[in-house]
């Protein structure tokens, strides 16, 4: 574990220097996977077949690129070294998922002192061949937004889903930037309450 943390530190410093600006996403063509039912020929194949999936899982759980990149890096650095390549594809995926779960839990303990999000088994298997954004998350977001008053819904949509700045959102809503800020905080708090209610 100590070694793992040391590795993470190195990785974080490494990536901190090369944080890429957000770029428009290229169209994702349908992907055929390298391997069929059996096993991967080498670590290379494990990586190519799983990097996309692990990154998406992590992004969905931390919501930002720098952390998602670090955590994906950590999963592969941790998992690939002791990996038996002769294991079946399903075993390798399960092992990567288990590693991802641990890495995410450790991340939250270190950054915020409590687990904000967790990885669940059943979702992992679903996310193999998704388009750019996981439809499950979009559906979840829409369900929550639908429960909110109109103005709350609009400000969250503008800020979170449409990537508007506060200024742009304020202009769109016809209010001052200060008011937009307050509106956003209240809207988010209520969205959290709705999400909690839905989860229970």
């Amino acid at each position, binding site marked *: 574990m100590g070694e793992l943390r040391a590795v993470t530190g190195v990785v974080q410093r*490494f990536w*901190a220097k*090369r*944080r*890429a600006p*957000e*770029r*428009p*996403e290229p169209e994702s*063509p349908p*992907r055929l996977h390298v391997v*069929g*039912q*059996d096993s991967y*020929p080498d*670590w*290379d194949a494990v*990586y190519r077949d799983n*990097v*996309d999936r692990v*990154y*998406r899982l992590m*992004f*969905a*759980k*931390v*919501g*930002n690129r*720098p*952390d*998602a*990149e670090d955590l*994906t*890096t950590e999963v592969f*650095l941790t998992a*690939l*070294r002791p990996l038996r390549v*002769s294991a079946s594809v399903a075993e390798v995926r399960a092992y990567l998922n288990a590693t991802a779960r641990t890495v995410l839990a450790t991340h939250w303990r*270190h*950054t*915020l002192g409590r687990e904000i*999000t967790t990885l669940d088994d059943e979702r992992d298997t679903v996310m193999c061949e*998704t388009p*750019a*954004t*996981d439809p499950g*998350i979009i559906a979840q*977001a*829409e369900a*929550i937004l639908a429960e909110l008053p109109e103005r709350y819904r609009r400000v*969250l949509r503008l*800020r*979170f*889903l449409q*990537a508007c700045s506060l200024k742009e959102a304020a202009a769109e809503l016809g209010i001052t930037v200060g008011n937009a800020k307050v509106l956003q905080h209240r809207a*988010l708090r209520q969205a*959290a*309450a709705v*999400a*909690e209610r839905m989860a229970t």
Partner: protein
Amino acid sequence: MSARDVRRFVKDLLRQRRPRRFAAGPEDAAELRAAIMLRAARPGGGAPTEEFVAGLYRRLAAELGGEAGPPRAGRRRFVQVTTAAAAAAALGAGADHLLTGGEQEAQPPTDRTLRPNDGQWRAIASAGELPEGGVKPFDLGTVAGFVTRSGGQLRAVSGTCTHLGCRLALDAPARRLACPCHRTTFAVDGTVLVHQLPLAPPPLPVLLVRENAGVVEVLVPPQRT
């Protein structure tokens, strides 16, 4: 007083920055979770960048490559018999590649040959179906690829793009293998001809191939039943 920390966390998320650490209280968790979920639902944000995928690949290759055992150059030479045709293809690759710009080359792999531990020789064509200069696709379940006869030598390469694993299509007139996903093309000997990626993908893995009693056979992992 963590309300301010929560606000800063949300601000960082929205600006696509790494959120700063703070001691979150139990009452903060729901709000942070909602912010992450809404942010992750932004269309088109969830996929890794090409740059990240290539960078991590290089890093892993550096860390794991050293543990791959002694180089097996001797056996590689056995498979990659250099023929006049292969040399010509390699020359062509060089020229074409210049057109795609002066990007970095991927690190050359130590051995391109796929050598299954418990492989079996499987027939893919009769010798007559593969005349000099011919290219024939095959799919054996565990491995799909293309076999060619050039300069009297048989050669088989994997039919899976080394970038993200899309199935390559044979452009028979041009004697090229084209990837439908990112416009990468390979020569039938597996070398990369054209690509538009930040980093050149590795050449296609080579499969062991032989001619046995008039039948062309490839060594592949056994199909499990």
